[in-house]
């Protein structure tokens, strides 16, 4: 079935089966990827997929279903499944929004999510990029011993959302990506360096530049060793600062706050970070991964600061959590066709004004651990904010810079944020959904 027809059918069948309200999502995607190893293609993959997801509300009780079989009979079964499951769940007290006039099938081109050039990124161009990058990496440094990760890809996708109140929205996106992982060796010790990027326009992929960067990131850690345990100021490089912060972003979900699973319960209006620090959801950044005009429930999105000048101002809501708090919906709902409606950042941004250069941050204390690699996040507790994480990086002492590994850092993210000494003045390049500059923490506990 065509997406519009399938959405109309599943909503109609849900109504006929007893749902007073329903919303449904259609997602389809196509992708092509190529991996190379030692000058040859190792894998080539292409895919197309489509799926339909339904939320049926029966007397305020939600039931969810999805299907990748898209013939009319399968779509009807999907509707029956959701309505049947709704009888098991408890009421959530939400009403779908009346049709908004300011959101309807806004053209994705305005958000820059679609560039037809992406379809010209074909296997030949991908292989050329891989071979050029591999050759460049191998000649860049004699210590390079292996390039186990080398690949390019393109993907395109289309999402349609419809509800029983008459909303129908659509967006389309496409991107091209390249990544390379290099292993170098010295004195029998291996270190891996990686770099990768995505752009809407494949001509912006600089495979050889990324190869050199990956080599640099690999060899710069050779000879690393532990340093003695103790408190140390830590600079989280912009390569990993978003990864670090994202471990704890669940604290900003209204659902977690309402259920007591966030350290930010009861802290609206209080100081979380130093003055000048702004953390926002930015749905209208041109060309970025999390950009969108309507959210997962069909509401208009808008930029909003959750932390404004260091003060906590609010949380991320969907219709259900907004109703529970008795506030106006904020348009932060997130949804895929197989899952439930949740909430999330539509591009997380730590804003740059007030940011400083890397050199300035590294010299802010006589001794700074500049972290460029995180090793897993499972020692971190997203609820309490407790941090315990293995890291690699450099100990910077004035002009001296020595590589460090086999150490772990511990502390608490919320204490770290409140004592933030400074932040950087730029983001990692490429299309992404998180924009976090490097972050300088006054002190964490280092163990070796």
């Amino acid at each position, binding site marked *: 079935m065509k997406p519009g027809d399938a959405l109309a059918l599943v909503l109609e069948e849900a109504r006929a089966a007893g749902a007073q309200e329903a919303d449904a999502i259609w997602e389809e995607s196509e992708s092509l990827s190529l991996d190379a190893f030692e000058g040859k293609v190792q894998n080539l993959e292409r*895919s197309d997929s489509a799926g339909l997801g339904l939320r049926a509300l029966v007397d305020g009780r939600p039931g969810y279903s999805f299907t990748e079989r898209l013939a009319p009979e*399968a779509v009807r079964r999907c509707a029956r499944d959701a309505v049947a*499951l709704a009888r098991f769940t408890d009421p959530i007290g939400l009403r779908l929004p009346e049709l908004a006039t300011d959101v309807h099938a806004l053209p994705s081109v305005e958000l820059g999510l679609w560039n037809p050039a992406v379809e010209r990124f074909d296997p030949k161009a991908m292989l050329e990029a891989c071979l050029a990058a591999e050759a460049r990496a191998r000649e860049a440094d004699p210590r390079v011993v292996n390039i186990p990760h080398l690949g390019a890809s393109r993907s395109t996708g289309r999402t349609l959302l419809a509800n029983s109140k008459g909303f129908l929205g659509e967006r389309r996106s496409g991107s091209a990506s390249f990544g390379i992982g290099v292993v170098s060796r010295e004195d029998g010790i291996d270190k891996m360096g990686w770099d990768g990027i995505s752009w809407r326009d494949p001509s912006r992929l600089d495979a050889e530049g990324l190869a050199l960067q990956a080599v640099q990131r690999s060899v710069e850690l050779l000879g690393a060793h532990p340093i003695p345990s103790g408190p140390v100021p830590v600079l989280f490089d912009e390569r990993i600062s978003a990864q670090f912060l994202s471990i704890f972003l669940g604290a900003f979900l209204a659902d977690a706050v309402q259920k007591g699973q966030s350290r930010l319960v009861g802290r609206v209006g209080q100081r979380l970070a130093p003055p000048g620090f702004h953390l926002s959801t930015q749905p209208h950044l041109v060309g970025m991964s999390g950009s969108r005009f309507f959210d997962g429930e069909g509401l208009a999105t808008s930029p909003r600061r959750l932390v404004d000048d260091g003060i906590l101002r609010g949380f991320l809501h969907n219709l259900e959590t907004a109703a529970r708090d008795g506030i106006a919906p904020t348009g932060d709902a997130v949804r895929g066709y197989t899952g439930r409606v949740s909430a999330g950042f539509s591009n997380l941004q730590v804003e740059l004004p007030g940011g400083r250069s890397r050199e300035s941050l590294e010299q802010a204390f006589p001794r700074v651990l500049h972290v460029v690699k995180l*090793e897993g996040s499972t*020692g971190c507790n997203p609820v309490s904010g407790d941090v315990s994480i293995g890291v690699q990086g450099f100990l910077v002492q004035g002009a001296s810079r020595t590589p460090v590994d086999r150490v*772990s850092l511990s502390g608490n993210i919320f204490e770290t944020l409140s004592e933030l000494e400074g932040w950087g003045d730029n983001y990692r390049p490429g299309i992404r959904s998180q924009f976090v500059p490097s972050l300088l923490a006054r002190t964490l506990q280092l163990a070796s």
Partner: protein
Amino acid sequence: MDRQRAGRILQAAQAHGADLAELFVEETRFSSMLLRDRKIESATAGTEFGIGLRMVCGGQVLYAHTSRESEDSLLGVVEELAAARPRDGSGLDLGDPIDGRGTVPPDPARIDPDDPGVDGRLDALRRADESARSVSARVVQVSTTLLHRRSRILILNSEGLDVEDDRCWTRFTVAVVAEHQGHRQTGNEAPGERRGLEFLRGLDVEGQSRLAAERAVRMLDAKPAPAGEMPVLIGNGFGGVIFHEACGHPLETEALRRKATPFAGRIGDSVAQPCLTAIDDGTIPDAWGSLEFDDEGTPTARTVLIEGGILKGFLADRIGAAECGLPRTGSARRESYRYAPVSRMRNTFVAAGTSTVQDMLDSMGTGLWAVRMGGGSVNPATGEFNFAVEEGYMVKDGRVGAAVRGATLTGKGHEIMPRIRMVGNDFELAPGTCGAASGQIPVCVGQPSLLVDPILVGGRS
């Protein structure tokens, strides 16, 4: 899928230069229920359907997946893949055809969520919830879920392989949050088996919930863990996640064919103390990671990885075996039709030894008893790993002391192996989900308690 239609598609793939062509047809039904804060918060059902087409041309793997099952559409996919293939003329001898024909019949005792009258799930979730709350007034939140998955798959290849399988997985999870004076701790249990909902009948859901709640409450009194190198007694069952991540992944041919493993070229070498034997076994009845046939149709097997400290073998799919010159082990796996199969683990474990937990506590001096491990990660190319300790205690002169929280274990897999000094007699398997190149798949990890001396502990004090 109609065999004649499939035959024409496979022939077309061969005509376009495939040495081996394969179709993987999958239809999977999912269902899940979540009870949180005494409310059924969500109930979901769904159907996944798709076809994976693999063409092996020399050393290249061309893979496509689609949900469009018409012959024209699939022939179009073959042509698209063939046209996209960069030709580099390399060859690969794939060896003998897989000897796989057959249909695995569904277990007659199996209970499916789609069967009419199946409604014991709500009751099980509510009993589990009450059981956790009854442990302590400090229990402030309980979430319980039931997850069920049934996959019907068909694998056909250009050599005549024809395998049908009907696989079920059922899992119960409980997550408990306990709170005292503003401090929170969590406890989790997540038993699962490769069976239908009949798995629930033999499961003590109340007992599982109690275990999770008691752990969360115990850890409320824990102090920050110390840091530094020390002997660590790693608990049985889920403690095997360290072996899985740090040694299991580097023993997959998927790592070996990219030369991204410290075990390359080391079969026959001593890689651990003689007390250590490690096995990956896909044949354990009903175990979470077991299979009758792997995902390219090879009957599954029991594979000895390390025996008495000597490296014996790798886990190989067909291409990995051919490229690396190793025997196939029935280890080709994929999450779904969306992934080409590669070598993956099934139920991977360190075999039982002879020491008691008290023997090991007595011999460790001062160190950490990591009774229960949390998750972790590893870089297979370098062996570097990092794991969280969910429940830990300090040990001094063989005596178990205060509970500690926030500890992590850090190191390199191949360096840790020789430091496993004693192997316990309390072997246990635990189910989990493993993520890698061919997606998220069900596996078991397992081990008896192991004394590792020393290992780097990261903590706060």
